[in-house]
């Protein structure tokens, strides 16, 4: 899951789906999810999944990325199906198609809508401190991801993953992530100092802010 790449696609994409206003896409997504939760037949669910994939293709989204993200619930489904006795192929197909179609719709929505655009819409429903926290997290991901890449390189140079010595591998990984956390905490201190200087009062102002 490369968040840099995913964010790049959603921010810099220029397809017809990227140009649709985020609010309209969010309403459409909610309606599609409600529809998918109530459809019980394989042909209709298949048609919905095909429509989601078609939208992804016409929006010039990287199909491989869409499929990789869409297949994330597979592990949960495997565990669930192992726990159900006498389940028929038809029932399995209905559940799989429904889960993948909903996940696919959410992924297509996100790959064509940037986080800040989504947060701006959410700011109409969520309290100010929650939106501020969402923006902080979004910003922080990109502030500390460079540090994570450096730590990843350091981890590989020190031996990386060695399945013959799992304890040593975990110890190395612990040290690497410890460095990562120390760096993150230092960044947090710097951000905190900057916020104090700017007179931060539990909210931030952003484009589309109705209260700003």
């Amino acid at each position, binding site marked *: *899951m490369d*968040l840099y790449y995913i964010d790049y696609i959603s921010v810099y994409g220029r397809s017809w789906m990227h140009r649709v206003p985020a609010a309209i896409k969010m309403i459409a997504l909610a309606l599609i*999810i409600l529809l998918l*939760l109530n459809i019980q037949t394989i042909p209709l669910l298949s048609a919905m999944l095909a429509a989601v994939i078609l939208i992804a293709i016409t929006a010039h989204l990287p199909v491989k990325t869409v499929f990789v*993200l869409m297949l*994330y*619930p597979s*592990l*949960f489904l495997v*565990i669930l199906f*192992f*726990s*159900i*006795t*006498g*389940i*028929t192929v038809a*029932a399995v197909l*209905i*559940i799989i198609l429904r*889960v993948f179609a*909903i996940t696919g719709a*959410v*992924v297509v*929505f*996100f790959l064509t809508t940037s*986080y800040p655009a*989504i947060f701006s819409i959410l700011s109409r429903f969520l309290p100010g401190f*929650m939106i501020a*926290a*969402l923006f*902080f*997290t*979004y*910003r*922080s*991901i990109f*502030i*500390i991801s460079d540090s*994570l890449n450096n730590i990843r390189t350091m981890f590989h140079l020190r031996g990386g*993953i060695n399945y013959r010595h799992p304890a040593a591998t*975990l*110890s190395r990984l*612990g*040290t690497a*992530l*410890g*460095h990562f*956390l*120390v760096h*993150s*905490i230092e*960044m*947090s*201190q710097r*951000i*905190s100092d900057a*916020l*104090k200087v700017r007179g931060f009062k*539990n909210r931030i102002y952003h484009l589309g802010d109705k209260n700003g």
Partner: protein
Amino acid sequence: MSHIHLPDGILPAWLWVAGYVISALLVAILWRKGTATAQPREFANLGIFAAVMILAMALEIPPIGFHFNLSVITGIILKPRMSIIAAFIVNLMLAFVGHGGITVVGLNTLVLTIEMVAGCCMFRFLQKRMPMYGAGFAATVIGLACGTAASFGIIAAGSRWIEQISQSTYIHLGKQFTGGHLILGRLAVIMFSIGLIGWILEGILTAAILVFLSKNMPGLISNQEAG
């Protein structure tokens, strides 16, 4: 694999709506009925550590796709009040990339909050009684076990609906059967046995990080007693 994000389309509407309602109530209660009074330092920590959790989940160990959560260590540093907000943010942002369902963000938030808060409380309790490594390991394992138990409890609460969507009639050897029965015992065995491997791995890692932090930033861990 220490916990599983619940996907969309598996649980009944009443359950995931309840998840959103309970999460919203928890946020409101923890934030003194919505009058947020966090210091800039708390907000900066919240943003950074929510990002740390999201990025840690992107670090997968091949070939099994296992990833760490760092939920317990984040809970220890952020304390319970901020943990629920961090849990909501992490689940919402991950839901947009298919990592957990969008309708079940509330339920996944509750699961992650339970992990973080239980881990934090256990760590505070054990810190005075055990060496740092042991306290970190035990707190992480207990926190993650609580999270898995919460996930299982949610699935058990929605089991009747899961059976409804997976039930169908079929004929075998001339007899008619109704299939699609969710065996909760089997589900518990699978979830907790796979989870146990994840808890131990995450426990060792979290303990190693806590030992590292206690040597390099001792104030960060010891200050938690005051919170």
